[in-house]
């Protein structure tokens, strides 16, 4: 039972006529003997009308094989080409109107290139967009009145000029079309735009100046986060980065579509991993229109909240540590990408701040801390290997260290900081902040950027000191450690601080290792003076930030 197109409203009209006709035939009466054959024919036709023929119509109406449920649910009717669509005269007329209005818009866009301050031209654009919006609204209204799905219009968009299709699609809201169908339509329109016309020729918007099809689509998608994610899951990286004329639109689309506030780790990986694999193999030509010149930086910003997925959590993105590490190093060796990662590190720390540290069994889960510490070490090692030692790299390490330390404190002593803690920031009490300030360890991102050099020669060690300080301060405030514990920690570290002490012979000239040793000695010393839980928390932080690989490299 195959149909290539239909109008549900007209089919319903047909259904009513079939029923009426069957009823009329059933009302014919003739008992004359010579009319027996004729009446048998009438009865046969009536039965077929009321039976199989009516069933055929009702079946299409009730199953709507090309309609909303089939498409939105991902179930395609067997044997149906995906371009199947009805050609309602009304719809065709409207499409012709859309194409005309689009041609007008492109003409105005072209004139604006040379006369961009002309208010009349800007007004014309507004009027044209308003007309398109009105026509879309009129169709939606008529379709609803007739019980016809709006998806019919969406399917029809695949047959028309891509720019016209994009200008129409952006006016279909969530009430008319769900995110998945919206994204699917956007991908299809973009693919057609890439493929070109019948002979591969470019469409009109390529030459017009101003927004092209991709710009219109990306702007609309960025306004619908759910659709943005669905679009990114479906779009090829080449279609994403070799389309729009405005990098900021691609940036918005990527950041919104992969935001940790909205998508889970697996979904982010589904989107970002193919991009991270594609970009190094496909350098973006910087001299062309319609390409995203800052692609690496945009991706770096989007990846920042998910950094552990490029190392300790690589399995969550379905690739190996080595593959993730290669992607990380590719990003770090791109100046713009490195800068973007520093700029986006607030997002990384906010991501850390939203991680659930309680496992399903209610126990504290320190896996996150160990993964963050491993990421910190991974980034440090990559920077070291590639001899990236500029202020930007230091700032990145400072941000990561602060975030990791904050996470460590959250895990080891949840709730200890109360309202003083701001989500996403290192959770330090005023007591800990004063101590860190006294020792010259930086605790604010602003100061970190201004003075980003590692205090103790290794950012992992810095993070361990910050985390340990936070824990000790909290334990003091809870009465679980003597009030002088921070002073003792300060004394232990003072011997290896750059301005106060020389490294002893037993330290082997390696400051990170020396600081690590002092921290372990301090924890061993306070162990008998505190409760078991606090002692274990202090040990957990030390082990999480133990980084023998980078330590050996830095001290070699």
């Amino acid at each position, binding site marked *: 039972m195959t149909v290539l*197109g239909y*109008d549900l409203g007209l*089919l319903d009209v047909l259904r009513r006529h079939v029923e009426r006709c069957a009823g009329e035939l059933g009302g014919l009466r003739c008992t004359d003997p010579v009319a027996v*054959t004729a009446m048998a024919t*009438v009865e046969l036709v009536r039965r077929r*009308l009321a039976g199989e023929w009516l069933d055929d119509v009702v079946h299409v109406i009730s199953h709507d094989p090309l309609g909303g449920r089939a498409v939105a649910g991902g179930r395609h009717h067997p044997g149906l080409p995906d371009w*199947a669509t009805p050609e309602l005269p009304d719809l065709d007329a409207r499409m012709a109107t859309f194409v005309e209005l689009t041609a007008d818009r492109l003409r105005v866009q072209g004139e604006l290139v040379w006369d961009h301050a002309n208010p009349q031209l800007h007004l014309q654009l507004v009027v044209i967009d308003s007309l398109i919006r009105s026509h879309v609204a009129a169709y939606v209204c008529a379709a609803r009145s007739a019980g016809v799905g709006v998806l019919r219009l969406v399917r029809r968009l695949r047959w028309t000029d891509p720019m016209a299709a994009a200008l129409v699609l952006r006016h279909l809201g969530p009430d008319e079309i769900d995110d998945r169908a919206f994204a699917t339509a956007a991908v299809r329109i973009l693919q057609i735009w890439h493929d070109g016309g019948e002979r591969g020729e470019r469409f009109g918007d390529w030459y017009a100046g101003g927004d092209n099809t991709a710009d219109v689509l990306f702007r609309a998608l960025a306004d619908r986060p759910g659709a943005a994610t669905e679009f990114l899951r479906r779009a090829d990286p080449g279609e994403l980065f070799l389309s729009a004329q405005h990098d900021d639109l691609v940036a918005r689309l990527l950041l919104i579509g992969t935001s940790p506030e909205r998508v889970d780790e697996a979904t982010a990986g589904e989107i970002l991993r193919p991009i991270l694999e594609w970009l190094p193999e496909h350098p973006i030509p910087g001299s062309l229109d319609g390409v995203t010149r800052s692609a690496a930086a945009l991706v770096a910003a989007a990846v920042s909240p998910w950094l552990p997925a490029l190392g300790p959590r690589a399995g969550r993105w379905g690739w190996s540590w080595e593959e993730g590490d290669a992607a990380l190093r590719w990003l770090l060796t791109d100046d713009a990408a490195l800068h973007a990662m520093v700029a986006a590190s607030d997002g990384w720390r906010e991501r850390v701040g939203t991680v659930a540290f309680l496992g399903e069994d209610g126990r504290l889960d320190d896996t996150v801390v160990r993964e963050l510490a491993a990421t910190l070490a991974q980034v440090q090692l990559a920077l070291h290997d590639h001899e990236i030692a500029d202020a930007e790299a230091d700032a990145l390490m400072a941000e990561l260290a602060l975030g990791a330390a904050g996470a460590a404190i959250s895990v080891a002593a949840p709730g200890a900081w109360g309202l003083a803690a701001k989500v996403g920031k290192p959770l330090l009490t005023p007591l800990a902040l004063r101590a860190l300030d006294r020792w010259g360890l930086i605790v604010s991102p602003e100061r970190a950027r201004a003075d980003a050099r590692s205090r103790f020669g290794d950012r992992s060690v810095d993070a361990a000191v910050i985390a340990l300080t936070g824990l000790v301060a909290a334990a003091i405030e809870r009465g679980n450690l003597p009030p002088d514990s921070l002073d003792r920690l300060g004394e232990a570290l003072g011997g290896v601080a750059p301005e106060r002490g020389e490294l002893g012979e037993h330290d082997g000239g390696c400051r990170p290792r020396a600081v690590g040793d002092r921290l372990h000695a301090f924890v061993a010393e306070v162990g008998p003076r505190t409760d078991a839980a606090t002692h274990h928390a202090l040990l957990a932080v030390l082990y999480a930030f133990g980084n023998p690989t980078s330590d050996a490299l830095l001290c070699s």
Partner: protein
Amino acid sequence: MPSADAELLRVRARRLRRLGAQLASRPLDGVLRRAGDDTWRGPLAERWRHEVAAAQLRLADAGDELVRQAIVLERRADELELLARRVAT
């Protein structure tokens, strides 16, 4: 004066003509008009339209046949009346 038999035949013929006219008036036209490409298209729609159009033809044929039968009855009625007049004269 027409005989009762002739009158009965004419009554039957009128009924047959009326029914024949109904069937020959293409009763499925309204359905077919609303089943065009604007409403649906594809193999199912094509087959559906073909079958309904064929049924329309069969109904029309049946209607024509009823009219022919009505004509036969009317002729028999005419003959009966003619016979009756001859008998009367």
